[in-house]
C-alpha cells in the first residue's frame, strides 16, 4: 500500500509551507498532492514557492499532483483553476470545474472533495480521463469495498482517507472572518494564527469541530489504522495522510511501519497519541454508527 500526503488545508506562512515540503521529501511516502484547496486568498502568499516544492519532491522520487480549489465562484478563481492545468503537472480535481479546463482525454486524479459515491460515477470519471480516485471520507466501509472492486475492474487506483482532521464542509462564508466581526472580503487573514484550525466547542464545552476559514473540519483526527488490512484486502492501494503542523513526518513513519507490519495497529495508536496527547481519534465514517465514533480503546 502507498502513502499519499494530501494538500495542506490550513493557512501557513510561506516559510513554514516550504520547509514542510522540504522535510516531506525525506518522508516515507510515495505521493504528494499540494497547492491551495480551501481559499484562493491564501495562494498569493506562497504560490511562488510551489514550483520549487514540486521539483524537490520529484527529485526525491515522489509522484506529485496539484490540487484544484474546492469551491470556485469568482472570475479570478476560474482563471486560477484554468491556469493550473497549464503547469504540466498532474491535476487532482477537488471540484468538477477543473475538469472543464482539461483537454478531452487528459489524465487527472480525483480528490476526496469530489462526490464519488457509486460505481456509475467512477465509470464516468474513468471515461473522462481519471487514473486515480481518493474516495470521500464520509463513505462507509461497504461502499469503499464496492468502489475498490469497481476501481479494479476499470483500472483505477483507489485511495482512502487514512489520517487527519476530516474536511466536513466548505462554504461561501468565512467563519474565521465572522468570528472576528469581519467579512470574507475584508478578512485580514484571521485564519493565519491557527496552524491546525480553531477549536469549535459545544455548549457543554466538548471539542466538536474545527474552523478553518471557509472550511469546517472535524475536531477528531480520522485514523484508519484499525481498518488497514480490510482496506488492503478490498483493493484500496493508497492511504491519504492530511498535513498537520506538529509531528507530521513522524506520523508518516508510523503509518509506514503499520503498512510494513513492523508495528501493530494498537501500538501505532499509542505512537500517534504520543505525538500529541490532546489528539482525539475517529474512524466512525468507515465502521461506526457516526463519523465521530472511534473503534479503539478510549485514550
Amino acid at each position, binding site marked *: 500500500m502507498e502513502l499519499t500526503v494530501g494538500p495542506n488545508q490550513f493557512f501557513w506562512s510561506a516559510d513554514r509551507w516550504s520547509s514542510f515540503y522540504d522535510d516531506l521529501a525525506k518522508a516515507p511516502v510515495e505521493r504528494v498532492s499540494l497547492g491551495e484547496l480551501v481559499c484562493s486568498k491564501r495562494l498569493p502568499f506562497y504560490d511562488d514557492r510551489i514550483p520549487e516544492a514540486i521539483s524537490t519532491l520529484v527529485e526525491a522520487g515522489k509522484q506529485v499532483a496539484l490540487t484544484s480549489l474546492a469551491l470556485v465562484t469568482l472570475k479570478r478563481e476560474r482563471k486560477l483553476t484554468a491556469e493550473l492545468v497549464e503547469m504540466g503537472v498532474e491535476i487532482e480535481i477537488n471540484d468538477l470545474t477543473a475538469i472543464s479546463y482539461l483537454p478531452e482525454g487528459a489524465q487527472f486524479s480525483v480528490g476526496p472533495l469530489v462526490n464519488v459515491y457509486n460505481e456509475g460515477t467512477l465509470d464516468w470519471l474513468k471515461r473522462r480521463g481519471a487514473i486515480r480516485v481518493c474516495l470521500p471520507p464520509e463513505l462507509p466501509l461497504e461502499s469503499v469495498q464496492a468502489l475498490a472492486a469497481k476501481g479494479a475492474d476499470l483500472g483505477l487506483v483507489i485511495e482512502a482517507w487514512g489520517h487527519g482532521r476530516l474536511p466536513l464542509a466548505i462554504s461561501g462564508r468565512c467563519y474565521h472572518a*465572522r468570528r472576528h466581526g469581519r467579512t470574507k472580503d475584508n478578512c485580514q487573514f484571521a485564519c493565519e494564527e491557527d496552524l491546525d484550525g480553531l477549536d469549535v466547542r459545544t*455548549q457543554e464545552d466538548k471539542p466538536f469541530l474545527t*474552523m478553518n476559514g471557509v472550511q469546517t473540519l472535524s475536531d477528531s483526527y480520522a485514523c484508519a489504522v484499525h481498518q488497514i488490512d480490510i482496506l488492503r484486502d478490498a483493493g484500496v492501494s493508497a492511504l491519504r495522510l492530511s498535513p498537520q503542523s506538529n509531528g507530521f513526518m513522524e506520523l508518516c513513519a508510523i503509518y509506514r511501519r503499520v503498512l510494513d507490519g513492523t508495528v501493530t495497529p494498537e501500538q501505532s495508536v499509542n505512537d500517534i497519541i504520543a505525538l500529541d496527547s490532546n489528539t482525539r481519534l475517529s474512524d466512525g465514517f468507515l465502521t461506526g454508527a457516526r463519523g465521530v465514533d472511534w473503534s479503539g480503546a478510549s485514550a
Partner: protein
Amino acid sequence: MEIVCPAGTPAALRAAVKAGAHTIYCGFADETNARNFPGLNFDREEMREGIAFAHQHGSKVLIAINTFPRAGSEAIWHRAVSDAESCGADAVILADIGLLDYAARNHPGLRRHLSVQAAAANADVVNFYASEFGVKRVVLPRVLSVPEIAAINADTEVETEVFVFGGLCVMAEGRCSLSSYATGRSPNMNGVCSPASHVEYHDEGGVLDAKLGGYTIHRVGKEESAPYPTLCKGCFTAGGKEGHLFEDPVSLNAEKLIPQLDKAGVTALKIEGRQRSRSYVAQVVKNFRAAVDALDAGLPMPEGMLARLSEGGAMTTGAYKKTWR
C-alpha cells in the same frame, strides 16, 4: 419569472397548483430524494395522479432524485429516474454525476435539471454539466451574490433557478457531512440533515439543552424556546468567543431581491419546504405569485407579506448580499 414550489404530499401539490404555482417539485417516498422524512413524499401512484392534476391545471412537475446513489444499490435510483419518466414528470432534478450520466444515456427525452446538491457555482462548470449531460437548468448553490449570479447568466445559455424562501444551507450544498459526523445520517447519503431521530431536549434546573447526536448546541432559559438543533445554526464557542459561529437560526427571504434576480437573468425562483404543511405552501405560493405577476406588469413589489411564515421570524437574504460572507 417562474415560481417553483415544494410539495411533500399530494395535498400540498394540489394546494400549490390551486395557489398559482407555475411548477411543483417533489420526490418519491424513499432515500432517492433529499427530504426523506417520515410521512412525506409520493408513492408511484400518487406521483402519477399528482402530475396529471398539475398538468390539467397548466402546472409542471419536477421530481427531485437528488441524493447520491449508494454503491451497490444504484438500481434504486435508476428505477426512480425511469418511473419519473413514466409518471409524466416534466424534468428530474439530479445531483450525482453517475446518475446524470445514466439518465442522459438511458432517458435522453427526459429533461434534466442540476440539483443544488451538485453545488455548481460558476459558469464554466454549469456549461460543462450542459455539454456532458444535457442539463437544461441548474439550481444555484446558496454561496453566490446577485452580481455573481448575473455573471453566470452572462456566460451560459443554461437556465438558472435560485432559492428565495425557506430553510437556508450555510455550507455549499451536497458538500457537507457535518450531519453524518454527528449522527451517521447525511443529506448526501440518506436525504436528511440533523435528523429528528437524533434530537434530544434536556430540562435541568431551569436550563433547557437542545442536543443533536449527544452534543448540546443550544442552551436556553426555561422561559425561552430552544430552536431546533440544526448543526450549522447552533451556538458554539471558539477562541473564547461564544455565538452562532456559522449562522444564526434564520431562514432565507429574498422577496425584496426579486427584481434584481430578474435583472440578473434568473429564470425561476425556488421555495424551500417540502416538509411544510399545505396551508403554508399555499400562502407562500400566493405571495410569490403575486410578486412575480406585479413584476411582469411593471407594478411595485408587494412587501413584507411573508415575515410571519418564517422560522422564529428571523430572516436573512443570505449570500445574495456580499457582506454575508
